[in-house]
């Protein structure tokens, strides 16, 4: 059975982007409908993949292979495991809702949607690639359009220049969109440089014949190489996942980015980083992972707490959400570092849940900003009266974010904390839970300051609720949070099958490491 469904999923957004090049800039509706098609086709494809995925068989399904550079053993090789299924669904949902949420974009909308669709093609490509090199290629495609997306369509945050280095802030226009775009691009590409070395190392250590993940995964890399290679991957992919202290691009970037881009970037792209650490780092280099896991976990704990505390101190609404992403990605990395079934299930599930939640958050923040033309929380208040729908969904996303049982965020965090408790470092669970508590503080406080109380102040006279396609985006994401929160089995089954298949080998390698020590 081979219907090229995965190629369609990866190719459809790209194709839609190419078609958009030919469409006239002025036919706004056609541009949007085409972009939406480019998002919906992969979503439907992902649902079909999930529906036909053989749970009993597990493993990699729907393989597709096309030679790309045979002399070096590079081939376009696609297949899905249980993890990929859930992440494909997530990406499909986020891009579809992202297009709907940016329906009213005015400036140069055609180019915007083209870049957005190209980026999403890259994301889909990373999740289904079974060839290390192609994986890296798609990873780069997903990262690079961001420069233009933020640089052209981004907005400015208020970052006051102060202190002895104020002149530096002014010189580089810190807080500006071009600064954010450049910072993000350069930081992520330095990460890519580190990844590239490890890719070469794996390729040549495994014989220099193929980049196939299956073959590379079963090669026996010398311990010394694994020990230096894993931290490079951790740094490389981790910089995209917002690992402390390489997270600093994330608040600036997310705050400056336009709505759909923040949704995609925080919702899906940061997951690429975490996915890379687990899929490439931990699965390919198990001994290195075993050695470095305590450090990964330790840093992840810092991420959770530092992100949450930083979010608590922000006045700019987008920075709050951006720092909360840093905190929640810490939970993903913490789950990965536990090297337990529950921890890994939780990590992947957190990617899924946090994607939905942060997507919803950024969509809402975009709506508020578009109407209020300000993101300064202290100046707001009483927004719930003119925009009750936005307020309701904000609270819903907030509750999921702080881990209220019944919503998707809870399932993920619970699993991660259980995993942490079972691991060799049980105490990791404590700061994790503390982070969840801090989250409750800043999310509820933000909701209170913006939407409730007296108001709205006089300068906000243009407020109104969501409209047409914006409603669709909010309802879809909100419904997902509730459905996957109250019935996690829908996604968790896929994840569990894959985890069960990968983990024993990794755990064995890690325990052998413990014996040697």
């Amino acid at each position: 059975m081979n219907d090229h469904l995965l190629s369609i999923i990866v190719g459809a957004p790209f194709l839609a982007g190419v078609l958009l090049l030919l469409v006239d800039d002025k036919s706004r509706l056609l541009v949007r409908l085409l972009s939406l098609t480019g998002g919906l086709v992969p979503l439907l494809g992902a649902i079909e993949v999930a529906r036909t995925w053989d749970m009993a068989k597990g493993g990699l399904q729907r393989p597709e292979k096309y030679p790309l550079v045979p002399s070096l053993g590079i081939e376009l090789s696609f297949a899905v495991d249980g993890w990929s299924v859930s992440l494909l669904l997530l990406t499909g949902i986020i891009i579809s809702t992202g297009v709907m949420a940016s329906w009213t974009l005015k400036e140069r909308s055609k180019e915007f949607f083209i870049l957005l669709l190209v980026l999403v093609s890259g994301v889909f490509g990373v999740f289904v690639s079974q060839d290390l090199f192609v994986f890296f290629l798609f990873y780069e495609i997903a990262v690079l359009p961001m420069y233009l997306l933020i640089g052209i369509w981004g907005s400015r945050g208020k970052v006051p220049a102060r202190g002895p280095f104020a002149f530096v802030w002014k010189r580089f226009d810190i807080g500006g969109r071009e600064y954010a775009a450049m910072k993000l691009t350069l930081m992520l590409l330095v990460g890519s440089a580190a990844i590239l070395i490890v890719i070469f190392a794996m390729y040549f250590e495994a014989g220099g014949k193929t980049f196939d993940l299956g073959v590379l995964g079963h090669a026996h890399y010398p311990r010394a190489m694994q020990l230096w290679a894993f931290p490079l991957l951790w740094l490389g992919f981790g910089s995209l996942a917002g690992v402390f202290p390489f997270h600093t691009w994330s608040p600036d970037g997310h705050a400056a980015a336009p709505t759909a881009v923040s949704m995609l970037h925080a919702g899906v792209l940061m997951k690429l980083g975490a996915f890379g650490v687990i899929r490439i780092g931990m699965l390919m280099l198990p001994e290195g992972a075993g050695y470095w896991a305590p450090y990964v976990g330790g840093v992840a704990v810092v991420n959770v707490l530092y992100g949450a505390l930083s979010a608590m101190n922000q006045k700019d609404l987008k920075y709050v959400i951006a720092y909360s992403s840093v905190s929640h990605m810490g939970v993903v990395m913490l789950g990965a570092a536990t090297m337990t079934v529950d921890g890994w299930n939780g990590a992947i599930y957190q990617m899924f849940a946090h994607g939905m939640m942060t997507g919803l958050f950024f969509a809402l923040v975009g709506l508020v900003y578009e109407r209020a033309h300000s993101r300064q929380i202290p100046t707001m208040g009483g927004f719930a009266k003119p925009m009750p729908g936005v307020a309701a969904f904000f609270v819903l996303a907030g509750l999921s974010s702080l881990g209220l049982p019944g919503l998707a965020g809870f399932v993920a965090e619970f699993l991660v904390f259980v995993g942490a408790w079972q691991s060799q470092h049980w105490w990791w669970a404590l700061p994790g839970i503390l982070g969840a508590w801090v989250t409750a503080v800043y999310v509820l406080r933000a909701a209170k300051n913006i939407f409730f109380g007296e108001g709205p102040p006089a300068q906000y006279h243009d407020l109104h609720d969501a409209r047409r396609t914006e409603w669709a985006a909010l309802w879809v994401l909100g419904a997902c949070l509730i459905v996957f929160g109250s019935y996690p089995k829908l996604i968790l089954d896929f994840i569990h099958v894959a985890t069960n298949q990968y983990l024993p080998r990794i755990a064995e390698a890690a325990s052998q490491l413990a014996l040697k020590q």
Partner: protein
Amino acid sequence: MPTAFDIAPLMVDLNLLGVALLVLVLDLGMPHGRKRMLGLTTSILLFALFIGTFWMDASGSAFSGAYVGSAWTLMLKRITLIAGALASLGAIDHVDRHFPHRQGEFYLLLLFTMLGMTILPGARDLILFVVCFELMGIPLSIMASYAKADDRVGVHKHAAEAGLKLYLVSAASTAITLFGLSLVYGLTGSTKLAVIANAHLSPLLGMGMLVTLAGLAFKVGVVPFHMWIPDTYQGAPTPFVAFLSVAPKATGFAALAAVVLVAFRNDAAQLGPVLVLLIVASVVIGSVMALPQKDVKRLLGYSGIAQVGYMMMGLAAGGEYGTSMLLFYVAGYVVTNMGAFFVLEAVAPNRTGIVISDLNGLSKRSPWLALALLMFLLSLAGIPFVVGFWAKLYVFMAVYQAHQAWLVFFGALMAMVSLWYYLQVARAAYMVEPSPEQAGVKPKVAWTLQTAIALCLLAVVGMGAYPRPFLDGATAAARAFMLTK
């Protein structure tokens, strides 16, 4: 059995000479108003010759082994031919507008410098080597100062500086190379590379080797022999700079390969550290000096110095693998860099100096030019799915295999630095609002220049999307090079 009179391996070069003579005759007979046709004729004939090379077998040796043709030399001839064809195509409008009475000479000089370039890769004798170098170098200096007598192009002294610097450096580098070669000849008693290769390495021969290398490094513009590049680029006519920035580099690397991998192949251990030093210096100085540049042509000049460093990586890695990656890099660089200069010519056709702010708001004034420029810049920076990415990747793989993993990291890191200044140019085109004077001005681009840009864009994207045939070609060429050394 090679004889002195077997000239079949030089078929391509003889055809090129034929084209040059034809242009010379046509120039004499053509009335003044129609000289524009000369450029078109040159370009079409060069394209035809380029296509014709795919049916030519130019392997074998000529002139008693002084010249050895193979798939390697054929590939380099193709690179030169395509660069020449694109350069003449892109230059037609510029030359017609600015030097209407000196059109014939322009194309003639171009064809003669190309003749030197096509023969040089096959030269296996020091004398032929030097002759080719001179044939290639002297016309270039003349063309560099072409803008000197033109009233509209602006700064005369820059044009004079462009030509003079190139000439002096070229002459000095030839003198240095000759000095080195005379040492080598004196110690080995032969001008044949194959004989030199087997000579015992003495301190004096080592010095001859180093001096020769320095002379060649001048030609490709490796640090510390790079000073002429930015000034010459700034002052010379832009379409010519497009040619100057790529074709001599391709040939220069063929010469370097011949010297490093053939004549001194047994002394790789001694030569390796020198090459690494040149690489690091070129990449660092090229990248760092490009950062503050405001003039785009100077910026591309410095970036070219860094690019040469990356090409040297392929040379330093050596062997069939390294050589093929070097060749692929050069081929990709030719179309990319030429395309970038052509876009500059399209945006500011009446000037030799172009500052970054001239590009402001280009994406609104001319979306396709802006897109083309973006693609060329991304390719120079080594971003996936344009040819520059594969080029960088392949040289990195080659150096990794040559057990220089740290060079990979260094190279990738410096590529990030280069991305910063390439994006400064892209930023002007995409993110900066045009000034009121600029806003209404849509660049008017002649169809010939448009075609040249389109061809470059097609090559950059095409080689990026499907590098396989080009890589296979480069590998075959490198294998031939290794066999015929």
